[in-house]
């Protein structure tokens, strides 16, 4: 999901910046200033999660925790993830600067959809149902992100259609791992700090 500079076409980059700008503006308007520390916390979690490598033979992948960030932040995920990606590009050499917009869209949209689709049902459900919904949120967020990356690579270079399928398939094991991690995180938060799953909207 950290697409480097020089890979995508100018049109795709411009579209990414436009979408990221809109999402960030909406996210900033909806953020409750009294809950800004939660935004910083979730942004830090995403920033550090990329350093955690999961061994998936024959290679490895890194965590992203898109669904947990989305469940905690909702629309505020856009500015939080944009800032985290900027810091990753500047400090850790992950991704690029010109691709910041499109990378933010790739991760923020799955996080936001996880919040819109699963936040309410997870809060209302209990026991195995809550765990299943949390797994589905984590699993689906990663797959959606992978599908977006595959589509974006295809839009930049139609010759990459075959490898686009590969990108999607290669993320299936990671989606399972993220689903399990999301399941445990949500279960823990529901027991200890359920208000964190209420979002940070005004």
């Amino acid at each position: 999901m950290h697409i480097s500079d020089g890979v995508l076409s100018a049109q795709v980059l411009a579209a990414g910046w436009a979408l990221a700008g809109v999402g960030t503006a909406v996210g900033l308007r909806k953020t409750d200033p009294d809950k800004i520390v939660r935004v910083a916390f979730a942004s830090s979690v995403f920033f550090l999660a990329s350093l955690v490598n999961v061994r998936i033979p024959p290679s490895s992948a890194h965590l992203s925790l898109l669904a947990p960030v989305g469940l905690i932040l909702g629309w505020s995920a856009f500015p939080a993830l944009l800032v985290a990606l900027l810091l990753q590009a500047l400090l850790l050499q992950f991704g690029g600067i010109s691709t910041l917009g499109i990378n933010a869209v790739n991760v923020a949209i799955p996080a936001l959809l996880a919040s819109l689709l699963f936040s309410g049902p997870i809060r209302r459900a209990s026991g195995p149902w809550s765990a299943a919904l949390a797994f589905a949120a984590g699993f689906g967020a990663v797959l959606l992100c992978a599908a977006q990356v595959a589509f974006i690579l295809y839009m930049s270079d139609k010759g990459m259609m075959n490898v686009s399928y590969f990108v999607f398939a290669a993320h299936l094991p990671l989606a399972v791992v993220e689903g399990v991690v999301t399941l445990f995180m949500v279960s823990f938060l529901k027991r200890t700090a359920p208000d964190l799953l209420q979002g940070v909207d005004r």
Partner: protein
Amino acid sequence: MTKNRIVLGVFCGLALVFWAAPSALAHGTGYSRSNKAAVVLDFYYSTGETMSYTEFEVASPADPKVKWLKGRTDEDGRVAFVPNAPGDWTVAVFDDEGHRAVAEVNVTQEFLDGGNSAAPDVTPKAAAPQGLDLWLRCGLGVSLLFNVAAFVPLARRRAAKGV
């Protein structure tokens, strides 16, 4: 008369064969060991894994826009090419997931003349910070995030006092 025509035809045919012979001979192939100097680069991810079997492109200083050489890295994530002119060469490697690494190689005439014993000027680039540098950068990143977050209530408190 017919016999003369047959002889003339055979003679013309043979003349045509010998005239076209250099082109015909070009269909054969051969090889020999080259003594030219090669540039060899290793590409890898921040996890330590090599960028195996990923596409690469080499651009020469004569025309950076032209793909001078295209191919795939080998099993060990290695790219090898033989430059034919001094100057700044660019090697770009990109995988199927949007990751891209670019290496700048400064090739001197001395390297071209010196065979494999000389080394081209390559400034290595780490895939990501390592060790203490990595943890310091992580700490800086998290600190920046919380400092930005702390600025918001401070600004609101000052604005409220101002009212």
